Each structure stands twice: as structure tokens, then as C-alpha cells.
């Protein structure tokens, strides 16, 4: 198993290299002079443009610039925001907790709601419950999250004032955004759990468990679900990334602070260092999350540790 984990960790190195290179190149792929674009909203003279170019070391050869970018990033220096006049790392650190909170809440909701829906649909296959669950799953995937968010705000904040519409802070502010963020993931998890459960329920050990006279609840939860969840767990890493990226939309809809809203504002304001910083942090976080999921998978399922 250690060999498998080591190999898996080694495989992330070229990916992280590629990610850092791509994020670094963003600034250089901008059509036109990035400095002029960045400063387009400010009154500037040629002298200031020259100063900023020098500050960003844009006149060095590209490999040198890239080396500096990686070196600085490894030490936690992601550059300086022109718009907010602060170091990018600090800005991201201020905004990251709120986003992680939302992502984890969304993931929890999707995991609980999705697996419940999937299990119910599977054990009552071809019933109205199955049809309803799969109907919810179908709509959950097709519904744009920003529209769902607006509908929830309309229903639960404007009509019935149960939850606040916008802002961040306490748990009450988290309910609607987490629901909105997690619904499509819940739909995907529900469909996967259903098909995985259906497959497992036909196995001999399930028949044996039933034949032993175990209660159906016991059979479903102890014998079937535990095995059925293995393939579901693999997509948690994937879903974590999807939800983390999904906060871009949700934070804007609900007016929550976070790195999702930060990057949208930064793109609109041409604040490239912030855009690069957020993209880098999210991509690296996602790569690490997937690594962890694969490791958990190896621990859970002995068949994976073939190495």
C-alpha cells in the first residue's frame, strides 16, 4: 500500500508543475500589455507603468520570472493586489475560511441527501419513491445554481423570512447557500448510489445475510450500503473540486464573502495577481484533495493496493 501511495504522490508532481506554469503564463497570455490593462482604471503616467513593470520584474527572461514565481509562491508570496493594495496571500487567507465553510457544508448536504435519496430509490426500485428520487436528481443536475439560489431567496427570505438572504457569518447564513451549492452534487451522488446499491443488492452475501434472518434495515445498511459506497467515495474528491469552484457563483448570488466572489471581482477589475493567486490555490487544493481521496480509497478497498 505504501508503494501505491508513494506512486500516487509522485504522479502529482508533474501536475503541480503544469498548474504553476499555466497560472504563471496567464499574465503573459493576456493580449496586449498586462500592466497597461491592469492600470487602465487608474490615472497613470508612463513613469508609473515603468515602475510597475519593474516591480513585477516583467522585463526579465520568462524562465527567470517563472522561477521567481514558484519560489515566492512556495514561501507564501503570491504578489500584490493593485486594486486592494494588499499582498494577495493575505487577501486569500482572509477569504478562504468562509469559502471552505460553504464548500464543506455543501458537500455534507450533498453526501447525506444524495446517498439517502439513492438508497431509498434502490431498495424501492420501480416504485413511486424511486421515480421521485430520480426525478429530483434529474432536475437537480439541470437546474442552474444561480437560479435555484434566487428561488430559495425568494421563498425563504423574502416571502417567509426564515433565513437571511445575503451576507455571511453564523449558521443561519449558511443554510441556503449550502443547499444551493450542494444540490447538483447531491443529484449526481444519488444516481451513483442508486446504481451502485442495485448492483450490490444482487450479490450473494446480501442473499446470505437475508437468509440468516437479519432484519432488512440491517442488511441494507451493514451489508449492502458499506460496499455500495466505495465507488461513491471516489467522486467525493471530484465533487469537492466542483463545489469549491461552484462557490464562485453561490457567493455572488448570496453576497457572501469568500474567494469565489474575490476572483469574480478581480477578473472584472483586471486585478491579475489576485486572479492568479485564487486559481493557483484552488487548483492545488483540488489536486491535494484528490490525492487524499485516492489514499482513503486504497485504505478502504484492499483491491486497489495492487502495487
Amino acid at each position, binding site marked *: 500500500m505504501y508503494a501505491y501511495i508513494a506512486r500516487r504522490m509522485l504522479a502529482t508532481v*508533474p*501536475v*503541480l508543475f*503544469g*498548474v504553476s506554469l*499555466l*497560472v504563471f503564463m*496567464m499574465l503573459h*497570455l*493576456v*493580449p496586449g500589455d498586462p500592466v497597461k490593462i491592469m492600470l487602465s482604471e487608474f490615472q497613470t503616467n508612463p513613469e508609473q507603468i515603468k515602475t510597475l513593470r519593474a516591480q513585477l520584474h516583467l522585463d526579465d527572461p520568462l524562465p527567470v520570472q517563472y522561477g521567481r514565481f514558484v519560489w515566492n509562491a512556495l514561501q507564501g508570496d503570491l504578489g500584490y493586489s493593485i486594486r486592494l493594495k494588499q499582498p494577495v496571500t493575505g487577501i486569500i487567507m482572509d477569504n478562504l475560511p468562509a469559502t471552505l465553510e460553504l464548500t464543506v457544508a455543501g458537500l455534507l448536504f450533498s453526501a447525506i441527501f444524495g446517498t439517502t435519496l439513492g438508497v431509498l430509490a434502490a431498495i424501492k426500485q420501480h416504485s413511486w419513491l424511486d421515480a421521485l428520487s430520480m426525478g429530483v436528481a*434529474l*432536475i437537480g*443536475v*439541470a*437546474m*442552474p*445554481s*444561480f*437560479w435555484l439560489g*434566487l*428561488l430559495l*431567496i*425568494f421563498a425563504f427570505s*423574502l416571502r417567509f423570512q426564515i433565513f437571511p438572504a445575503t451576507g455571511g457569518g453564523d449558521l443561519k447564513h449558511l443554510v441556503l447557500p449550502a443547499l444551493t451549492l450542494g444540490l447538483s452534487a447531491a443529484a449526481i451522488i444519488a444516481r451513483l448510489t*442508486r*446504481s451502485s446499491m*442495485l448492483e450490490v443488492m444482487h450479490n450473494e452475501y446480501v442473499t446470505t445475510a437475508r437468509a440468516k434472518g437479519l432484519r432488512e434495515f440491517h442488511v441494507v445498511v451493514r451489508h449492502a450500503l458499506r460496499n455500495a459506497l466505495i465507488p461513491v467515495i471516489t467522486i467525493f474528491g*471530484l465533487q*469537492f*473540486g*466542483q463545489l*469549491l*469552484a*461552484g462557490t*464562485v*457563483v453561490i457567493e*455572488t448570488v448570496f453576497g457572501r464573502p469568500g474567494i469565489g466572489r474575490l*476572483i*469574480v471581482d*478581480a*477578473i*472584472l477589475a483586471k486585478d*491579475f495577481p489576485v*486572479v492568479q493567486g485564487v*486559481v493557483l490555490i*484552488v*487548483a492545488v487544493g*483540488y*489536486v491535494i484533495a484528490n490525492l487524499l481521496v485516492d489514499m482513503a480509497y486504497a485504505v478502504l478497498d484492499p483491491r486497489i493496493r495492487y502495487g
Partner: protein
Amino acid sequence: MQATQSLERAEGGLRESRIPRRYRDFARQLRRSKGALIGLTLLLCMVFLAVFSPLIAPYDPIELNAQDYLQSPRSEHLFGTDQYGRDVFSRVIYGARISLVIGLISVGIALLVGVLVGLVAGYYGGLLDSTLMRLIDVMLAFPGILLALAIVSILGPSLVNLMIAVGISSIPTYARLTRGSVLATRGELYVEAARVTGVPNRLILGRHILPNVVAPVIVAATLGVGAAILWAAALSFLGLGSQPPEPEWGRMLSEGRQYLRSQWWIATFPGIAIMLTVLALNMLGDGLRDALDPRLRG
């Protein structure tokens, strides 16, 4: 008499055999899937609205009308009007055109590049394969909408850049899928036979391998158009896609946001339109997958 009958039967057999059996099976499977038929019907309705929008839409989708602003739905404005007095019904209909074009072009870009990369990587293998796949891995390290977001931030927000961004970020799906199918068929005897008899690689790829790739790619592309429409709408909602006054659904939703409390219709109808379109594509995609790949049938 008997002779003519058997001749007719033979002709019938001939006529039938012109359509390969797997396509006939496929059509039968598809017809049996209720979801696929609903999806296809819905989708055809959307395509109809998109193609004939100038004939169907009662008003100009862009022209401002100061007197008629924020009218609730009524007979002359079926879906009401927005804050600029524009007819929401007309805008939703024109929006079908924009969204379907975005979906088709984005997926077209992704297909063109992705299938080519997958074919080449899977068939030639070796260093070329591992290099291309590492590149795809790097693209996959940017989850969900993030890669599209990064590309939009480089190119600047516009409808064309939106399609490029969504297209590029969907490449990995098709590249991996194609490569997988190529790897599965590369070792088949008929491919081996073609290679031994000296058929050039280009022909082997095009004539013997590509047909096996088509089925899973069609399924993925159908679902992909829906996903592309959702992403594009989300980016436009954030102001990073289509620009005013384009009647794009995501953009219309964001414009209707501030009127949520009392003028619900501005944001509601574009939302329903997005959902129905994506739902149609997903149902059709699910049906196609079941019909094309019996192993996946749940």
C-alpha cells in the same frame, strides 16, 4: 406468385440490410426510452424556437421601450416586461438561439481538439501519449468552472471568448473518452490485419478506429452541450460572458435579480428556459447512452 413473394422478401432483406443491424437496434432502443423521447421532443421545440425566433418573437428583444417597463405578464406581454420595457417572452425566445449556439460551438471546439488528441494519444502510445495525457491531467487540475474562468480573465469577457473558454475547458472529457475507446479497439484483430497489410495509419485511424469511438463520444457530447449551456449561463450571470443588451438567459437572470421581490417574472422565465433545455439534453443523453451501450443500462 411464390417467386415474386420471395423476391420481395429478398428485396426487403436487402433494403433492411443497408441499415446496419446495430443502428436498427439503436433506433428501437431509443424509441423504447420514454425519457429520451421526452428529451428529444423538448430539444426539438427549443431548436424550433431558436431557428425561427424572429418569426415567433412578438417584439424586438433589444429595443428599449420606456413606457412599458416592468409590466406583469398579460396578453400583450406573455412573460411581462423588464426594467427597460423589453418583452421578456421575446428575449427568452432569442435567448434559445444564443444558448444553443454557445452549447454547440463550445462542444464543437472541445470535440475537434479532444477527439484528435485522444485518437493520436491512444493509437500511437509511447511518449506522445504520456505527454498529451499529462497535459490533460494539468487541465483537469482546475475543477469545474475554474479553467473557463481563468481563460475568460485572460481573453476578457465577451460571448465569443465565453465559447472559447467553455470549449477549451471541456477538451479533457473527450480526449480521455476517445483515448479509452481507441485503446480498447487498438488490439482488435481487424486493426492488426489492416496494419499488417500495409494500410496507412491515417486510414486505420479514420476507417477502423474512429467508428468505434463515435458512440460514446456522441453520448458525452449530448450531455456536454447541456453542461456547456449551464456554464455559459453561469459566467454570463457573473458578468463574465455575454454583454448587454444581448438577450442571454444567464444575463437576463442577473438583470432580474434586483426585481425578485415584486417583478418575479424577469428572472423566472429565463431560469425555466435554461432548466428545460439542459433537462432535455440530459434526458436525451441518458437515453442515447442506454441505447448505444447496453452494458451501461441500469
